[in-house]
């Protein structure tokens, strides 16, 4: 267990004329095991990115704690965070806005090395060339500016930057969402290779359930700032316990390959409510086909159901046989 979030809450004050706050993440607890890939899925605005930024301390938490390699980093100052940053890196969603358009690629990749002075000044160009090669570039590209690269290439530059300091954990916020399938596959393969090579731990945030299924060992499903289900990927995709997870899975458009079974479709009514005015009780109840009175009133807590955890008053039945994943035993999570 390298990274552990305990009851993380993040609220934003609304700016301008409107008053009030948005609770983007509402008490999420999660443990990330060393060497695994933890997928986080959920619809737009459910707080995935915010949570990812809480994990990497890009933003301050409203409450709760984040522990990294046993150290509580949730209230460290920016200066004290610097050593942590070397081990805990982030890859961003938008390949267009995550690279400074006014810096050359070499500088972008060298930036972490310069900040942390881990590498001798003269050795930096070599290290940069190394990194670029590792993510599939000819080092001669180092003098170019980001605008000369395609989205996939940029994403790889972002990965090279994140890798520069040899981190142990990489939080990837929708690293492939902006990419075309052919390029997406390249990036996913690269991430897999790097994990194999360096034993990286990934927190992989995405809204494409297919991609998440493909890369993750365990998957967390978020809805309106809440963690609603957390399970081994295979188990979750095979038999979701939360109604929201079920609907989400059924909504994936599927290619009718020969012999592939189709999921039963569940068309949810209505939109995801705004986190600024969360429904009372279970946040999913207004759209839930199985909602009852209690769902309106009482907010379900995350409880363990077999090898998984789910926050639902009326969870779907799941097979009792536990699937043991290679990466570890089930752990109890508060």
């Amino acid at each position: 267990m390298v990274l552990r979030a305990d009851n993380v809450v993040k609220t934003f004050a609304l700016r301008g004329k409107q008053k009030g706050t948005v609770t983007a993440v509402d008490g999420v607890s999660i443990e990330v095991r060393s060497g695994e890939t933890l997928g986080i899925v959920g619809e737009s605005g459910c707080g995935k990115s915010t949570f990812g930024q809480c994990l990497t301390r890009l933003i301050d938490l409203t409450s709760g704690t984040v522990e990294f390699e046993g150290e509580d980093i949730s209230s460290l100052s920016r200066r004290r965070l610097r050593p942590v940053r070397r081990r805990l890196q982030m890859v961003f969603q938008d390949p267009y806005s995550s690279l400074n358009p006014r810096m050359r690629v070499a500088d972008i990749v060298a930036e972490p090395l310069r900040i942390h002075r881990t590498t001798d000044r003269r050795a930096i160009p070599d290290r940069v060339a190394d990194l670029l090669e590792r993510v599939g570039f000819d080092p001669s590209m180092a003098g170019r500016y980001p605008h000369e690269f395609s989205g996939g290439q940029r994403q790889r530059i972002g990965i090279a930057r994140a890798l520069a300091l040899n981190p142990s954990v990489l939080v990837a916020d929708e690293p492939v969402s902006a990419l075309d399938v052919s390029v997406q596959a390249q990036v996913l393969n690269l991430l897999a290779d790097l994990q194999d090579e360096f034993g990286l731990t990934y927190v992989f945030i995405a809204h494409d359930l297919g991609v998440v299924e493909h890369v993750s060992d365990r998957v967390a499903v978020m809805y309106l700032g809440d963690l609603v289900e957390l399970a081994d990927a295979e188990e979750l995709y095979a038999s979701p316990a939360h109604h929201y997870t079920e609907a989400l899975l059924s909504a994936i458009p599927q290619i009718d390959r020969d012999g592939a079974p189709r999921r039963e479709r569940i068309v949810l009514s209505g939109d995801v409510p705004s986190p600024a005015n969360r429904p009372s009780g279970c946040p999913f109840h207004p759209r839930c086909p199985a909602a009852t009175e209690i769902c309106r009133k009482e907010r379900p807590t995350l409880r363990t159901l077999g090898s998984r955890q789910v926050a639902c008053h009326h969870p779907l039945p799941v097979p009792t046989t536990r699937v043991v994943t290679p990466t570890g035993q089930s752990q109890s999570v508060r």
Partner: protein
Amino acid sequence: MERPAGPWRVALTQIAHNPVAVVSGVLLVAIIALCLAAPLYAQYIAHTNPFESNLNGYTMVAGERVAVLQQSTTGLKLGVEPIGPTWNLSGYFLGADGQGRDVFARLLYGGRTTLLIGFTSAILCCAAGALVGIVAGYFGGPIDWVLSRLMDIVWAFPVYLLAISLSVVLLTDGLRIGPIVIGPGNLMLPIGIIALIYVPYVARPLRGQVLSLKNREFVKASIGLGAGDWRILRREILRNVLPTVIVFIPLMAALNMLTESALSFLSIGVQPPTASWGTIINDGLDLLYTRPAVALAPGILLVLTAVALNLFGDAVRDALDPKAKLRGAA
């Protein structure tokens, strides 16, 4: 290996391919060159010192020796008239002013001052505006509040009022900041005043830009890498607002030149004997009805320069930061 084109080079190529930019640029360069050549003209062609009163001087017009200032000989013989344009480059091309000085030579010298003030104050103003905008936008909180209110104050202070108030004080006794004494005739005063009054024009949009930059992922990434504020400001923020700052410069230079001339028109800008187009216009207004050329010529040059600067500035904007929202002249 071919050197890849950076964003600056791309912009430069774009400007070079914009005919309006090229024409206005050439015009600007021509005007600047002409003004820089002022001493050459005064010394070697017109043989005149345009800063010395020449009340009893004579000059040759069409082979005849005539007084530069002529006592009126008609009617009640009231008034003294300077000679009008000779249209002869070797002296008094545009005639003389009330002090008997060569207007054309003064025009060239005046251009130097006006351009100097325009550009220096534009650069100063942009630098100060950038500093304020960046600091306010980046640090936010109380720093932002204080800086924003300061900008509000300068903004709500009507431009000319502020300039006039400052000028009245500063031009009387100059400025003393500790050991530094800036005399009342020093050009730094109008430069500083003009730069100051337009700081909010630059600071406000830049602050907005920094606010949105702050949310861009590459800034987040930099924080994530452990970069300190100073590094982020320098490498991430400044580099990205720099194009906008640069876009401001020619446009502010045009605006500032016009402001300088307006202040000089109110005789609180450039102080004599230094000439600027504004002061020459001001001098010329006393001769407007008899020798309109004295006031018209600097005005026309001023307009030409401002037009060229504005056109060029537009081209720079199109090349560097097409979304920059700039207000025209005040």
